[in-house]
């Protein structure tokens, strides 16, 4: 089938898409956007998290056809050209990235959280990111990064969110 969708604000088309292909496969293999990751393809790890119509979903669980004429947002769309987004900046600064395979999904989930909840508590951060596995960091620096990004977002950070 032919799939038309908008990714990161740009209309895109994929041809010869199989019935069984996931949105994740289409993004990674047909649209040249491998930023969203494929750690389990079973909806368990969150590494494939993307925005679908503004709501974070596991792209591996979304059938490609379900994205027809929809808006998709991926990690590649978080930065504003050269300027990293607050969560991206905070992940780099806090050392929340080791191998980085979990990072794209975590960034979308964290971006969603700080857009929804102005000043999330630790319990809220943990709850929001509970579907995103990271095997490297032990999550401590991810917590730091999200706190930092949230603070920057609400402008309450003393030094503009820089550590």
């Amino acid at each position, binding site marked *: 089938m032919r799939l038309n969708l908008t990714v990161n604000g740009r209309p895109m088309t994929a041809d010869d898409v*199989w019935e*069984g*292909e996931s949105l994740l496969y289409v993004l*990674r*293999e047909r649209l*040249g*956007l*491998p*930023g*969203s*990751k*494929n*750690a*389990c*393809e*079973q909806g*368990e*790890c969150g*590494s494939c998290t993307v925005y679908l119509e503004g709501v974070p979903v596991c792209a591996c669980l979304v059938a490609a056809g379900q994205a027809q004429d929809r808006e998709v947002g991926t*990690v*590649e769309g*978080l*930065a504003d050209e050269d300027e*990293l987004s607050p969560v*991206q*900046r905070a*992940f*780099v*600064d806090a*050392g929340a*990235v*080791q*191998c*980085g*395979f*979990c*990072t*794209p999904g975590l*960034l979308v989930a964290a971006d969603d959280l700080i857009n929804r909840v102005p000043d999330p508590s630790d*319990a809220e*951060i*943990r*709850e929001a*990111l*509970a*579907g*995103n*596995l*990271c*095997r*490297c*960091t*032990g*999550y*401590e*620096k*991810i*917590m730091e990064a999200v706190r930092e990004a949230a603070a920057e977002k609400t402008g309450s950070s003393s030094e503009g969110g*820089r*550590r």
Partner: protein
Amino acid sequence: MSPRSSSTAPTANHAHTRERGAPMSNTHTTPTHRPQHLDEEIAGGVGESPLRPDGSLKVRGDFAYASDLWAENMLWGATLRSPHPSARIRSIDVGPALRMDGVRAVLTAEDVPGRNLYGLKDLDQPVLAEDVVRYRGEAVALVAADHPETARRALDLVEVDYEVLEPVLDAERAAHDDSLPRVHPGGNTVRYQPIVKGDPDAEADVVVSGTYTVGMQDQAFLGPEAGLAVPAEDGGVELYLATQDLHTDRKQTAAALGLDPEQVRMTMSGVGGAFGGREDLSVQVHVCMLALHTGRPVKMVYNREESFFGHVHRHPATMYYEHGATRDGDLVFVRARLYFDGGAYASKTPVVVGNGTTLGVGPYSVPNVRIEGWGMYTNNPPCGAMRGLGAVQPAFAYESQMDRLAEELGMDPVRLRIRNAISRGDSTPSGQVLDYPAPVAELLRRVRELPLPRESTAESTNPDIRDLPGGASNTTHGEGVVRGVGYGVCIKNICYAEGADDFSTARVRLQVVAGEPIAMVHTAAAEVGQGLVTVQQQIARTELGVERVNIHPNDTSVGPAGSSSASRQTYVTGGAVQAACRAVREQVLERVAQRCGDPVERLSLSGGKVVSETSGVLADLAEVLGSEVVEATREYHHRETFPLDEQGHSERAQVQHAFSAHRAVVDVDTELGLVKVVQLDCSQDVGKAVNPDAVVGQIQGGSAQGLGLAVMEEIQVDGGRIRNPSFTDYLIPTILDMPPMNVDVIERGDPNAPYGVRGVGEPPTISSTPAIVAAIRAATGKALEHVPVGPEHIVE
């Protein structure tokens, strides 16, 4: 036909662009006449925490991992795996699969062009099974097709006729029962090693014993096994892949392909974690075979289920321990028998036995010892390297024993440990004198002093149920919840051991680009997430006094670096980079010395200048270099080690030892058996923290893996079959499971190591597990002789 990565991956590994916000100044340092002062002004050197050079690419989603690669005209590979733990292959018919639309190749053992055997220590594993299969999941045939789904479906059409055989499933039985079938012709013992010290039959006032078992743990790195092979014009192949050790992969792959090593050129792609699980071959030979056969680029990516079958796991172990002590609490003897289930192929089993036995009494001084270790072949899934190799299992046992002994003696468990702690100048049971700091007692004291959480959530008037065992499942509001505190401490050897010369190689080049002196560091050392790229930059900055350091992509065009394992890379590759930088520096300074007459020893590089001790700044480095390129390649060999004799003695079996201590605080719902780790604290000696922030990251991540083993992670194997090969059923800690940590890092430098470093990555994985289990015991009073601890062990 270049992989998609060719435009991004190399930049991914370069460090041209400094991260915004990096704690380094963009302005050049202004030299004064005080060289020491200058040294302080080159930011981002050894001992600081500059940001990783690949961080920006990783957060943008632009970092090319092995599974992201793509090439024009590319095919997809898939692997057919044995459904039986033990069977004879009567016949294989690839015809129906080959006839399927879109299928380009179906290959079996007959198509292996070279030696159909590989292995890290013993050559015992076929690339594709020949006449027998020895485990459920063993590779039997390969398919290449236009679409990954086509390749997977074609696997179902490969017809294999198996004669099912009786599997060997019990490692301990295999060690003593010669009537069992032989998994390999040479018998079922991969390695037996005893360690005997003093009078192993000594008697003591107080004796405690226990039998401890450790389940099979998975590395569960998130980035799946993947590689892209591109056939080359010279009949060779280019392989882009995720691995821990390029050169060992190349050696094994070339032999299996029947090619010269020079014809197999490997380039590292982004690696999504490793933890030991990428030491053995997975896709390497397979994907190259398919590419060479079809003449087209072929990509292979395992899905999560296949990943569970496609790499080795942590050895499950059964361990019998007996500890004897005086009434005052001095250890008199330790006797132990350790059985490690290596599964179908040897992989790192010999090393697991070596580490397990030599480190089997823990970081304690014990006069009389008898430890015996068996590493066995069975028809269970193959086991090999995982973080804490061979040291994790006995640590759970010996630390459990120390707690049991403390209880028997009526003594505080930390005091008992401190009383028996090994220290500098003591010798290990194998007879190696620790000729460097061994601050075990200090670590225990420090971790005990770290702040405790204020109160049990269960006791607070208005508990947030998310902080209680069971969390948001709302299983308790505090009733039945008991708090416990426990401690654990461990010892781990760093680098390869028992006579291995696991050296590393670095090539360093210094030249002027656009008016600025720039260093480039080229090694084959795998960046698997740990931050080795940052460490290499830091070392070059410190040694060469330049700010800009680029990291060349890892490939096989430079000498071997050995594996990113055994907590060894900062030590050996750090040592190689240091040595190569110093050689480059020497060349530059000699040039200046000739010109100005100052002896080389008085000169140094600092802040982009050549500085003399006596007369201050002599010249700009850029000016001295001009258009010349100064380059040096150096190997770093750690000090020599020696094999163990038949009594387990060796003057120096291991290069270095590292130590960490954990304290765990848990809340246990004693009615449901649910555990919430409330806080997990760690004190660790890292010798020298080359990058303090990254060190803390290693300790946090390692502790999380130890937490996983303590309370949730186990590959369930039943009749040789893995029952839970998915993240749905094999649970690893989430952000809800991992508590806040106090991390306390001390630096008691090892005089034998570059900058005094001590391996960092493994110890925290080792001591966290026993600490957590001790805390659960303190809360429940249960014996808890198996990890992971499940609700069924608490509610019996």
